């Protein structure tokens, strides 16, 4: 046996070596944005046409990982822009002091809430919602209250607020609707919870699409993909009377970036139709600006929540641990 490991590595290296053009913008993001059919490639092409630079993605597992990586690298980071944080990770990211103000005027935003933040620029948003299988559940609950009071043989799949963004979203949703009563309502709900998965993917792929339960915690925009691409109306979101909790995905400039101007140009580009038109079907979320006629037709058929529920990120950061602990207590009692 003659293993020549170093040689192997040496032989592999040139395969990856690329010539670097004059200006490169490094963006840290997560996999669903950078995927081949995600918005990433189209955005890259569109931006490179206008900037005469190269747009580079470094793909990390989740928003949490982007933040983690940024923290580890500190001011020596090679990131110019981070894209893929959300309202749950924003505050922690802000506190690192590694991010720079965007100095843009955010007057063309089309968000259900008023957005004034000098660091984070939203690029898409959506509502958390329970998606149900119309074949298994022809008449879904019409409100959160109805779901909580439903008999225990209605099974639902949720995600764990300790490890997943939608999971935390439901926790905040319950908190926003019920306040101090949330604990008792969670106890009522727990009998219906078939599984509390680590991530949205685990629940959606392994359980929901296998028909294990008729309802799963997801996004109100999820049916858009099934309707537009899969050509099926089978999966729909249940509209809840109390309103739906809002998630906003954001990007920010990195303080230590040597390409501040280019970074700002990208952030501006981010709020233009050239970027935003790829959001609805490729990221399956609402665009952050009004796209007018460019918004795909299926988006008209999505539920329209009566009210957008939203807690300030700073408040979320303060309350999260005690909310999670209360949830744990309710679910394990």
């Amino acid at each position, binding site marked *: 046996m003659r293993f020549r490991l170093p040689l192997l590595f040496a032989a*592999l290296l040139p395969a990856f070596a690329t010539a670097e053009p004059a200006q490169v913008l490094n963006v840290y993001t997560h996999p669903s944005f950078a995927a*081949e059919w995600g918005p990433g490639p189209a955005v890259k092409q569109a931006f490179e046409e206008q900037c005469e630079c190269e747009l580079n*993605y470094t793909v990390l597992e989740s928003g949490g990982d982007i933040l983690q990586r940024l923290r580890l690298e500190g001011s020596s980071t090679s990131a110019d822009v981070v894209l893929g944080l959300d309202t749950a990770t924003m505050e922690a990211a802000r506190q690192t002091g590694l991010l720079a103000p965007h100095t843009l005027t955010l007057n063309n935003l089309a968000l259900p809430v008023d957005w004034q933040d000098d660091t984070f620029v939203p690029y898409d948003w959506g509502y958390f919602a329970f998606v149900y299988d119309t074949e298994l559940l022809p008449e879904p609950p019409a409100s959160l209250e109805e779901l909580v009071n439903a008999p225990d043989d209605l099974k639902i799949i949720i995600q764990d607020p300790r*490890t997943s963004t939608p999971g935390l979203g439901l926790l905040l949703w319950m908190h926003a609707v019920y306040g101090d009563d949330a604990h008792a309502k969670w106890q009522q709900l727990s009998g219906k919870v078939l*599984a509390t998965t680590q991530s949205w993917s685990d629940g959606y792929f392994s359980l929901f699409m296998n028909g294990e339960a008729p309802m799963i915690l997801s996004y109100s925009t999820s049916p858009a993909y099934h309707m537009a691409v899969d050509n099926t109306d089978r999966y729909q979101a249940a509209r809840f009377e109390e309103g739906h909790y809002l998630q906003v995905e954001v990007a920010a400039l990195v303080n230590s970036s040597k390409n501040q101007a280019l970074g700002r140009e990208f952030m501006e580009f981010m709020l233009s139709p050239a970027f935003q038109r790829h959001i609805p079907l490729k990221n399956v979320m609402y665009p952050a600006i009004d796209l007018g006629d460019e918004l795909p037709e299926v988006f008209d058929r999505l539920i329209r929540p009566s009210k957008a529920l939203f807690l300030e990120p700073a408040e979320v950061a303060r309350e999260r641990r005690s909310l999670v*602990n209360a949830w744990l207590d309710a679910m394990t009692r």
Partner: protein
Amino acid sequence: MAANQSQPLRPAPFSAPAWQLAPGLIIALALIGLVLLGLGALLHTAGTLEFEELWQSRYLRGVVWFTVWQAVLSVILSLLIALPVAMTLARLSHFPGRSLLLRLMELSLVLPTIVAVSGIIGVYGRQGWLTSLLNDWLPDHGWSLYGLNGILLAHVFFNAPLAARILLQALESVPAPRLRVASQLGLSGWWLWRAVRWPALRPVLPGVSALVFTLCFTSFAIIMTLGGGPRATTLEVAIYQALRFEFDFGQAAILATIQLVICGSLWWLVFRNRLESSLLPDRRFAETVSLKDSPGQGLGRVLLLGIFSVFLTLPLLAIALRGLPALWPASPMPSIYGQLLPATGRSLLIAVPAGLGAVVASLFTLAAANKPGNRILAAIPVTTGYLPLIVPPLVLGTGLFLLLRPQLGNSAQGWVLVSLINGLMAIPFVLQVLRGPLNAIDKNTLNQASQLGILGWYRWRWLHWPRLRRPIALGLAYGIALSLGDFGVIALFGSPGQPTLPVLLYQQLGSYRISEAAGTGLWLLLLLVTLFALLSRVARRAPGTNTEPAPAAAPEPRHA
């Protein structure tokens, strides 16, 4: 009898004693350094520690208790199934489909969790095949996959085949003379176990148990998907929560330390006593030795293997059926191959060096562990070899990241790094596969090799390599397969735009491309089957020394 008087020989290459100890020790120290660096970095960023508060938390105590409890149950169940299966397979050394069954057994562990769990749910879930059958026959069966049931079922699915595979390897190394004596004496039942099986299993059993325990102890996504709720929480979940979601590095470091202490002391216990080498040389004979059967045993064995095969096959079949529509040429989107093939190439580019590296590092580690001398010193390399299993990848990754950060300039280095960590993560499995066969060599043979001066490289080439070729092929297959199916490490370090297979799978999931994701899952499954089949074949007929007894070659009397 004319022969040249052998002139004074140059010493065998790499025969200086340091060569046996140093590389393994260096690997061990590097690993310890990494872990300390990772933990240290977390503690450093954490600032204040709330150790006391954490220790007194009811939640944490519950988590530790549950983690240990489910791991112990999983070990017991896995071994209860693995032992009879391994013994039956050792007994029935020729039957159609045996090697297929072995390949299936190698598969379950290396499948990406999300794919395997989806298969398990397709069979045992509320709408699963078996549950539907059960509903028809026994309407009030009360079976539910979600809860401790599901966790144990999945852990047995993942670990019993691994354990059986390693135990089988140990049983197959029983020296033929011992088997012949047992056959002649007509031993069966308890005495066969006592005289033949147990002595072969005893050296590997503690290691196998510790391996399965650690795998179940650090289990994560399975526990959360099938556990039914936050009552089923392992330490690893809490670490993930602290590290990725709450950015509470201090708590993460403390939890990781608790995990390290519990699993680490288990491994230390296992390796504190070095195994004595085998007592009998394994003389090989052309024919298999047949042992006495008690009545009904034949039928029982067929039944056992049949049930076990079904248990393993059904979830894989569910995966196949689910993925087939996306891969079949008639599907509306055959473009899936445009992504699958390049992703496969990238995956192999990372996985093959990782597998080779894991095998080489494991061999060095075992060489150091077998070096006569200080027992404690010798236990260090093997114990640390299992560190990648115990330390959350996130902690290990953080350490490596800090260590290599200034050099992490371009993506090429990123890929080499991913390969390196994947190799590290595979070491515990490769170690387990190689350990038994390497130690099975008898004292007498070693003495003779010493007298003839077969040392260093020569000893490896002529004594170990011919005997280890098949275990090495299996270890290599595990190493490559584990890193083919890996998602965690590559996601941790960030990959350049182009995805590997598991990253592709998660990207498809994240974009609602469920059927394509199922297709990718099946593709990965097929790739893994091919890999294991290929390597087991290559090992069987490699050129060079003749390891297989030529069938019925010399009808000589055997009265040695």
